[in-house]
């Protein structure tokens, strides 16, 4: 199942530094390599500070790259700036974690969704049709266009953010913790939406999350990050069922399951792992 994805994005030995002060640098990514195939969903798991979000931001050109290479569809985009970077908007899009901060509160939903199309030179009539289609795809009523983001719940806002990522019909969407601010029930339906959209449009996802349960649900493959490095990679099923790296094992056991008896066993195993660590 996982072998037949043609490579769309490949990242080799990526190094990213953050400047904390003059001459003080923090190495957020220490030579990370990852690839995403067309129509594939690749998960990136780790705790906060592990560098998983930094990798996403580096792909999107939001943070400068120290060394290494990012190739998208055969084209080197590591240091793409200005017009070259703006052209990539056709292919690479993003969904952020925070459903409140990621939509401009002063714009109507229609304006939010039409903006990426307007900058691409789409006519107003075409844009309106595309916006309507995408709203329908993310299961929101078409009269949402006249409303402001504040009139929607967290889950609905995340649907709007997904629709915005989709309007240019990109080939890759970087999803930066897109469900971690949501209730579990909302989270389940949004994950469902991600899967359906991928099947309908063939878009690829780089899915950043701290939750292995979420990743198991949507991702074909997963890479586990720890302190700026990838410690384990593989098919999701293998990594979540037979983790080889002790950190992955700890991560797995740390997530509580909704079953008191099994959770008691899990906790005991986790405590044992913590003692031995």
């Amino acid at each position, binding site marked *: 199942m996982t072998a037949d994805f043609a490579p769309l994005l490949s990242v080799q030995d990526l190094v990213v530094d953050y400047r904390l002060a003059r001459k003080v640098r923090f190495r957020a990514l220490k030579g990370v390599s990852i690839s995403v195939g067309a129509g594939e969903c690749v998960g990136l798991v780790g705790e906060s500070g592990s560098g998983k979000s930094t990798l996403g931001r580096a792909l999107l050109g939001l943070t400068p790259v120290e060394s290494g290479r990012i190739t998208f569809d055969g084209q080197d985009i590591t240091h793409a700036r200005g017009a070259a970077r*703006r052209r*990539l*908007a056709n292919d690479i899009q993003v969904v952020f974690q925070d459903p409140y901060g990621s939509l401009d509160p002063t714009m109507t939903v229609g304006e939010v969704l039409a903006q990426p199309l307007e*900058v691409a030179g789409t006519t107003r009539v075409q844009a309106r049709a595309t916006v309507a289609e995408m709203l329908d795809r993310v299961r929101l009523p078409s009269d949402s266009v006249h409303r402001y983001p504040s009139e929607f*719940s967290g889950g609905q806002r995340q649907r709007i953010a997904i629709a915005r990522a989709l309007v240019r019909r990109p080939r890759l969407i970087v999803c930066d913790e897109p469900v971690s601010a949501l209730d579990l*029930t909302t989270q389940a339906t949004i994950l469902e939406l991600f899967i359906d959209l991928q099947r309908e449009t063939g878009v690829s996802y780089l899915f950043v999350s701290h939750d292995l349960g979420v990743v198991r649900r949507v991702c074909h493959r997963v890479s586990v990050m720890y302190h700026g490095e990838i410690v384990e990679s593989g098919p999701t099923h293998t990594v979540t069922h037979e983790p080889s790296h002790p950190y992955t094992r700890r991560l797995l056991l740390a997530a509580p399951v909704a*079953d008191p008896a*099994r*959770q008691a066993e899990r906790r005991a195993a986790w405590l044992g792992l913590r003692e031995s660590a």
Partner: protein
Amino acid sequence: MTTAPFPATLAPVRRISLLRRYLRRPLGVVALVVLLLVVAAAVLAPWLAPFDPNFVTFKIVHAEPGNGHLLGGDSAGRDILSRLLYGARTTLYGAVITCVAGLVLGVPAGVSAGYFGGVTDRICSWISDALQSIPGMIVLLVVAAGTGQSFPVLMVALGVFMAPGYYRISRARAMAVRKEPYIDAARVAGVTNPRILRTHMMRAVYAPIVVQTALTAGIAIGMQAGLQFLGIGSASTPSWGQMMNDGFNTMLTFPKILLWPSIALGVTIAALAFIGSTLADLISIRAEQPSKRSRARVRHELAAPSAAELSDRVASGSHEHALEDCALRVENLRVGYATQSGVKEVVRGVSLDAAPGEVLGIVGESGSGKTQTSFAVLDLLPSGGTAVADGIWISGREVSKLSSAERAALLGRSIGYVPQEPLSNLDPCYTIEHQLVEPLRYVHGLSKADARARAREVLVRVGITDPERVLGSYPHQISGGMAQRVLIAGAVSGRPSVLVADEPTTALDVTVQAEVLELLRELQQEYGMALVIVTHNFGVVADICDRVVVMKDGRIVETGRVEQIFRAPAHPYTAELISASLDDVEGRDELDRALAHAGGEDDAR
């Protein structure tokens, strides 16, 4: 040209809501009416003025009001009322020029400096600071002398000195907005920087700029009158400052000549100042502080139900323990908020209890009222919220009738609180030591040394291996998990009998979550506390809780022991919440295989 600049510049959609809110403020309405009258007087001056403002009649030199001259005549024998009306034109014209100049120079520079930062910011800020350090009045006098006293040039020069005000406000707003994810999203969407500045940034600075314009216009009018008073500006155009100069020369003999322009000037500036402050209020304060009366009304409506709602008024939930065995007991709790359309009840009759050593989970989605319930128990409801209950008992004591000061005294002693966002619940200006030691000294009356020893001891207890370093740190120097440990240390340092934890692990990574839950469990067993955990995650419930209440729309739909709730959830909502956890659902490979399989069957058919 003579209209005041601010109402015209509001965006259509915003104007409706802001205008409507503005019109509810009596002071603002009066100020606006006054300003509109001044504007009308200026526009209609040629028709309203009974005489030519420069026409000299020796009969009315220093004349008292009356005799066809409503406000009398000035020292040169000109009609004061006519001059006032024409003077309003000059005044407003000058104010508009000044504001436009300030806006045009200050706002684009401020927005760019805030958005781009770096060199742009340094250069613009340097210019702005330099402008602010130059004595404006002297420069204006020089400009007046150098330009042959051209009034528009003078007003533009004044606008240049007003620009730093606009610059600072736009820069601060732009810096805040620049970090919002929607700006990143716009960049990823291929939006160019100029366009981001034009759309997102301009919209963000809009409201504060409107306020600033009202205030700037007031200052501009005052400065302008000052310059005219000194004799700067065309002598043939009537102006208020000039009239005041005229009146000032004969102040002791004919005080009224000074009085009329002074009133006009004072009233106009005051109107602009009040409009500015009303707008500032409306923009900055989202939720208005409820009056005592509205709070009493909420309490009355919560307590005295209408007949139609009676069936809904039965308390939901039940009590497990006898009253004397409870660490916490809540009976028929209701929480309401005053809104425009009446009282909005967010907790509608909740009864629950927890015994010492017991862990009670309050579970539900956002909007279920679970957090409001915990805030009501702590008496920490946000402003506008009112709670009524048939009774709230904390370690055996009825507290629902106590004053808020007495309730506050319980915090830290009988009942402790662990919040959801650890880092935003620590004051960034103080060290951890200060924030742990001060409560111990004030609440428990310990000496400084004792309090410090206790704080250190509790930090060790919550698993912090180097308490000295943590005590000396500021909140931004420690991680979220560490901050949550510190807050837990603070909450248990007073040995409360009830600990309320509101989503204590939601903002944390799973690995840290497991640590924090383990810590809470250990502390709860060690101290024999009742622990109330508010959460939306049934994994957390399964991990730590003994009993659970499930809330939906402000009511308890189910309550019971954890094993029983998980084995056989009685309410469909509970079952739905449990099944939302991703433990046993198919993984992506299984989902794809199922789809391929179904597709294959379709093909076979």
